[in-house]
């Protein structure tokens, strides 16, 4: 008995470092090298494509926190992209292009929207949660459409990218690329820490058996609401970057189709693994780009592909990799 108490197994059969960390390591290495390789090809096109991919990876990552780890199917997540982007756009329209002002506004407004809508949405479950998050997402969309002073329906073009403490370093595509990469890496590492923490363990437990969690003394609502706010804020960061990358802010960022695409990215990559969301975002956007080069009806090909992935690769692309022996456990 003494011996049993001193020997404390940490997790269920920990796999080797490379098996576990292989996929994220390769992903980030590729993203780090991409701009250097891109110089030999259509540089600005590739940088824009990869920047966009990483921005949506941050958004998908943030959605994975609540969808993958919390089993909360939020169908209004694109609203936070909009809040982040309008944080840039609205200040820019008033001549403030300083990132140190725009970014806090983008994050704070996303967090506040998450707090208010989350506090109401999380009182519902299942299909009702999906519907109410969808409704809040649409509310945000129509709010943006109604902002006539800021372009209304059409959106508005930004006069310039955000300035970092007065410097216009982000006008350089490569600098912006690396800033986005840094934001993605930061979001990824923070998310990983969160899901493995005490807090994250409560969220993961609630995914498996909420009644059990309540019966051992966890009032789940406040934990789930906190996670909802974290996810919304992180997606607001993606919105901030998206406005800078496209130089444009528009209600189109917050459509419910966009929210659906974010869900598809997370499911495509593999729910509840974080790097799966990055992989899913990359697969989605790169396939979209590639297929739309052949035909404007690219969704005719993309749709069946999604069906196949969901049917035959449970656990998404990451699940498929795992079965082939590449890349690690959750």
């Amino acid at each position, binding site marked *: 008995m003494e011996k*049993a108490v001193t020997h404390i197994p940490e997790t*269920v059969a920990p796999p080797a470092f490379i098996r576990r960390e292989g996929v994220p390591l390769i992903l980030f290495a590729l993203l780090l090298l991409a701009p250097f390789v891109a110089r030999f090809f259509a540089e600005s096109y590739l940088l824009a494509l990869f920047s966009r991919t990483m921005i949506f990876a941050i958004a998908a990552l943030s959605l994975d926190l609540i969808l993958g780890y919390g089993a909360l199917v939020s169908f209004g997540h694109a609203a936070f992209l909009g809040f982040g982007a309008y944080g840039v756009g609205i200040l820019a329209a008033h001549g403030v292009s300083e990132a140190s002002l725009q970014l806090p506004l983008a994050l704070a407004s996303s967090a506040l929207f998450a707090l208010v809508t989350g506090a109401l949405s999380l009182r519902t479950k299942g299909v009702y949660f999906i519907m109410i998050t969808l409704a809040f997402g649409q509310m945000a969309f129509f709010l943006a459409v109604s902002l006539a002073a800021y372009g209304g329906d059409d959106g508005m073009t930004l006069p310039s990218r955000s300035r970092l403490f007065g410097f216009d370093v982000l006008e350089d595509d490569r600098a912006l690329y690396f800033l986005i990469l840094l934001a993605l890496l930061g979001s990824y590492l923070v998310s990983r820490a969160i899901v493995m923490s*005490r807090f*994250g363990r409560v969220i993961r437990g609630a995914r498996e*058996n909420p009644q059990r969690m309540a019966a*051992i003394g966890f009032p789940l609502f406040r934990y789930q609401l906190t996670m909802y706010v974290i996810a919304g804020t992180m997606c607001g960061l993606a919105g901030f970057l998206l406005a800078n990358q496209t130089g444009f802010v528009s209600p189109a960022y917050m459509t419910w189709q966009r929210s659906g695409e974010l869900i598809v990215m997370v499911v495509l990559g593999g729910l509840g693994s974080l790097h799966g969301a990055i992989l899913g975002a990359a697969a989605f956007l790169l396939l979209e780009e590639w297929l739309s080069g052949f035909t404007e009806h690219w969704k005719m090909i993309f749709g069946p592909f999604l069906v196949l992935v969901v049917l035959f690769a449970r656990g998404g692309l990451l699940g498929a990799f795992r079965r082939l022996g590449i890349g690690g456990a959750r």
Partner: protein
Amino acid sequence: MSSAILRLEHLCKNYGALAVTEDVSLALRENELHAIIGPNGAGKTTLIHQISGLAPSDSGRILLDGKEITPLSMPERVHRGLVRSFQITSILPGFSVLENVALAVQAHEGSSFRFFGRAAAEKKLNEQAMAALAEVGLADRAARRAGLLSHGEKRQLELAIALAAKPKVLLLDEPLAGTGPEESEVLVALLRSLKGRITILLIEHDMDAVFSLADRISVLVYGQIIATGSPAEIRENRDVRVAYLGEEVV
């Protein structure tokens, strides 16, 4: 009766026109093992739901240690020391056995609003969890996925989870449900080892277990308590025999 640790006063619950719990009053003495028996549909599980806070009561009061807990939610009651188990096994199947228990420890040890540091590597939580596992005899299963345990082991795990929450009063809803003879023997021995240390309210259909374990027994029929007494008294009680044991008493 001054030492009643859990007191139910005129507890009622209706589902529509059906009175599931009708004016139930009961006082649990400290460290006694009090069993509730009754035919199927008598409202035993509903009563546990009401006491644990899973289902609200229509009227009546619940007092733990002399303090009213009726308006509190289930998690709040757990923090006051009122912990329950479920009739149908309720664990986190994807977590390791150790983590299932460590989470229960975590719920009581400091804040869970910690966003950094690996929870699974927290020694303090794991040691207490291991102690609870050792108590129910599952120490050698700590690293297993909880979903892979046998049914009997899952029931042991549920007890370990409940114990890790440091209960003053433990509400056990058919802990022997679905277990085979050998498994139930292990569990009965386990319950006997807890006897006298924790106040236990036990619902169970296994009459041999109930009559051998309980200090006192209450009989619930159609939502009403028709008798409370020692096992011997209950066995001899005429109303009980008619209502529950199904005897024709002329």
